[in-house]
């Protein structure tokens, strides 16, 4: 299985290569990618250089252009497609059907992957993208159990990529409006979930309050682990009590399921976290490189824990092993 690793900067890309990435995904420094955070991402020149250095080491570069174009600015997204192709990207990761159509018609030789943002979670939906746009790989939404993934792989005619580590969304990938509700900006359109420009932390004697767009979304005691300041990980008081009504602040870690994912026929494993620093990239990529090498050799590997890098300092296997209804 290929190990697909995140890079928010050229330095992170180099770090991922050093740590054992088979392929690296990244995006342009604008709203065309779903990690449009300040100080992050690649200029056109940086991408060209990154692709050249990756190819020199036999590493692939996948370019995420996975937000949904605004009606009045479709050319921005189309230019991103053209420039990524020109830079030598090994694949484009797209979500919008209009953009998929543009890429398939304009660059028929370019390998296309379907972003998780497209939320294609069943064989019929995936077949549509494969037959219509020639999509070669689908990144499966984080809503599927291991047996469901195996069923899908058997029925479709393209490769599959699944997340094995990092942040989890509330299973509304590509459709979530929580950030938009609170801030007017969303990962789907502007590429930012809970943008930092709308985040405030208030520190007091009783701990820290996180606020998003004027809403208080959580309060942490001084020694209590924290998560990202997103509405989906907010803790709210309702008539049923106070707690995490959408999702606990936890991170996905599917290290223990790698054998099952291989047996299910999955092609590639993806690490979330283009917004994270080099220390995260180094440690998480190296962890999964070791685990995959051990798996390939038929050995068990003591690859250690990644808990310090996780939201709330807690991990989960998410929907892969569903224990809820």
């Amino acid at each position, binding site marked *: 299985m290929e190990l697909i690793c995140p890079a928010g900067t050229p330095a992170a890309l180099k770090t991922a290569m050093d740590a054992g990435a088979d392929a690296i995904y990244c995006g342009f420094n604008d709203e065309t990618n779903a990690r449009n955070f*300040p*100080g992050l991402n690649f*200029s056109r020149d940086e991408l060209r250089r990154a692709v050249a250095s990756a190819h020199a080491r036999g590493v692939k570069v996948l370019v995420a252009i996975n937000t949904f174009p605004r009606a009045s600015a479709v050319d921005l997204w189309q230019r991103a497609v053209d420039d990524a192709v020109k830079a030598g990207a090994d694949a484009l990761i797209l979500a919008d059907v209009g953009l998929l159509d543009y890429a398939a018609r304009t660059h028929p030789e370019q390998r296309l992957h379907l972003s998780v943002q497209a939320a294609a979670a069943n064989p019929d939906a995936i077949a549509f993208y494969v037959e219509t746009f020639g999509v070669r790989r689908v990144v499966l939404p984080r809503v599927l159990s291991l047996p469901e993934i195996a069923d899908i792989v058997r029925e479709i005619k393209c490769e599959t990529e699944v997340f094995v580590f990092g942040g989890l969304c509330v299973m509304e990938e590509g459709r979530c409006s929580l950030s938009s509700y609170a801030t007017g900006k969303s990962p789907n359109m502007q590429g930012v979930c809970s943008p*930092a420009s709308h*985040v405030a932390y208030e520190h007091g004697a009783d701990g820290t309050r996180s606020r998003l767009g004027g809403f208080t979304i959580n309060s942490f005691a001084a020694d209590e682990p*924290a998560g990202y300041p997103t509405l989906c990980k907010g803790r709210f008081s309702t008539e049923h009590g106070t707690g995490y009504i959408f999702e606990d602040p936890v991170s996905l870690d599917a290290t223990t399921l790698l054998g099952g994912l291989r047996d299910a026929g999955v092609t590639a494993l993806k690490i979330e976290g283009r917004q994270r620093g080099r220390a995260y990239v180094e440690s998480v990529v190296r962890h999964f490189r070791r685990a995959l090498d051990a798996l390939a050799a038929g050995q068990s590997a003591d690859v250690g824990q990644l808990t*310090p890098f996780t939201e709330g300092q807690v991990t989960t296997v998410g929907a892969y092993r569903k224990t809820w209804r």
Partner: protein
Amino acid sequence: MRQSFSDTSDSLPTIPPLLARAITPLPLLPLEIALAGFLQRICRRNPQVFDRLGPHAGKRFGIRPTDLPLAFVVEASPRRPRLSVVRELPPDVDASIASPLFNLLALLEGRLDGDALMFSRQLVIEGDVEAVLALRNAIDDVQLDLTTEASSLFGPLAEPVRRVLAAARASVLPDTRPAEEVRSWS
């Protein structure tokens, strides 16, 4: 110079309170002159940091090592980056970042993950969170090696000084890469 990293954000050592108290009466000006020169040199050598800072270049960042009786105000202006050393952060900084000294140094070198420190409550941010994020990402891309930067001020003694500083750093933040790689990287 290749970087090494830690795969844990468990707490790093902090400055002993007795040592921190001993520092308190010392004048701040010599430290300010040295660090301001150091900052300007780093900015000259890594002008791309201002591209990543974008509209946040020129903002005033307050940096407070929580285990020291002093703090720093950094103005990351492309024309003239400034640094001042203060006893207490002024209220008019755009954003402040607080954590024990070794955490801050490890963050500067990209050896610790900022989000992980936030999750474990070892890093406190106030004010303009977007500016802090831009600063973090800009610095992370620079791949600073403070031992190399600092030792280069020592002319012909640069290499031995770098080794001493690197050894001191390793005693605080152990290298967790496989032994064979550590050897091949040195």
